């Protein structure tokens, strides 16, 4: 598959995400925030970083970048979209996902290897994982506290839309230990930890993140 990775001004992890896409067996296609063009890709990754310097609110300005018009339209038609960290914030600001990400409750930036449980393996980004798989993936954020009102949280839980949940410690005050969620249709996934930093033994805590990038093939050819 051709998987686009959007670069915004201030994106940090776009190159790592492209690399992870290739490790997952796909062609990585660089997409530019300023273009109204998805270059014919089959899926899109919104990478981590500090797009637009996190000015105003994290993801608030990126949400209105030209390329997001096409991303939002394609997501509505079912294209797989994965937002990692800042990408998750952009998806919430775009209203493709409910809720919001606010500053960590303990007010410190957190950077560590984080244990997670994958709770929804029906999305095109998580189908390679075993049900309730426990994985370790890099986490690094300053504004990673996922919040939504209680009815929304109940709905996410009730519809099985919590994709990943923090194990051991809750690193940022996220409601109900939520690390990642999906939309109603299941094609859009937002995740605060960084699976693209856990795709090879040399440079991360292991290869537990690779599943997010191999799942696309599994979902397509299953």
């Amino acid at each position, binding site marked *: 598959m051709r998987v686009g990775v959007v670069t915004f001004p201030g994106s940090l992890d776009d190159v790592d995400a492209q690399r992870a896409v290739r490790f997952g067996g796909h062609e990585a296609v660089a997409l530019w925030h300023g273009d109204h063009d998805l270059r014919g890709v089959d899926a899109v990754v919104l990478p981590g970083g500090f797009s637009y310097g996190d000015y105003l*609110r994290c993801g608030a*300005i990126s949400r209105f970048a030209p390329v997001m018009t096409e991303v939002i339209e394609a997501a509505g038609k079912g294209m797989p979209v994965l937002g990692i960290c800042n990408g998750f914030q952009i998806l919430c600001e775009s209203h493709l996902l*409910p809720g919001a990400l*606010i*500053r960590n409750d303990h*007010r410190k930036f957190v950077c560590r290897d984080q244990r997670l449980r994958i709770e929804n393996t029906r999305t095109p980004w998580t189908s390679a994982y075993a049900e309730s798989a426990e994985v370790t993936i890099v986490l690094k954020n300053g504004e990673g506290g996922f919040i939504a009102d209680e009815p929304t949280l109940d709905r996410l839980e009730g519809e099985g839309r919590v994709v990943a949940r923090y194990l051991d410690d809750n690193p940022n005050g996220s409601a109900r230990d939520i690390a990642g969620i999906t939309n109603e249709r299941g094609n859009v996934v937002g995740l605060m930890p960084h699976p693209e930093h856990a795709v090879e033994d040399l440079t991360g805590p292991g290869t537990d993140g690779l599943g997010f990038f191999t799942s696309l093939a599994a979902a397509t050819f299953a």
Partner: protein
Amino acid sequence: MARYVVDVMPKPEILDPQGKAVLGALPRLGFAGVTDVRQGKRFELELDGDASDELLAEVTQMAETLLSNPVIEDFVVSIEGDDALGGKHKA
């Protein structure tokens, strides 16, 4: 030229870590008796033309779409130096 002010505040039920940090710092400076601090944002927008209900509606739309996130924030729009058009407009 009209100046519009948009005040954005975190909703009361939303945790405000920045406000908490300020609250923690004040007693260290000797300011006792502060029981809570909430931190928000203030935007001052200069618009062409005289203040009007149309422009007010436009600024309100700006506040809804970009300046605030309705999931976590409330906002109030006001026109600076023009009481005639009637004070604060809350969303």
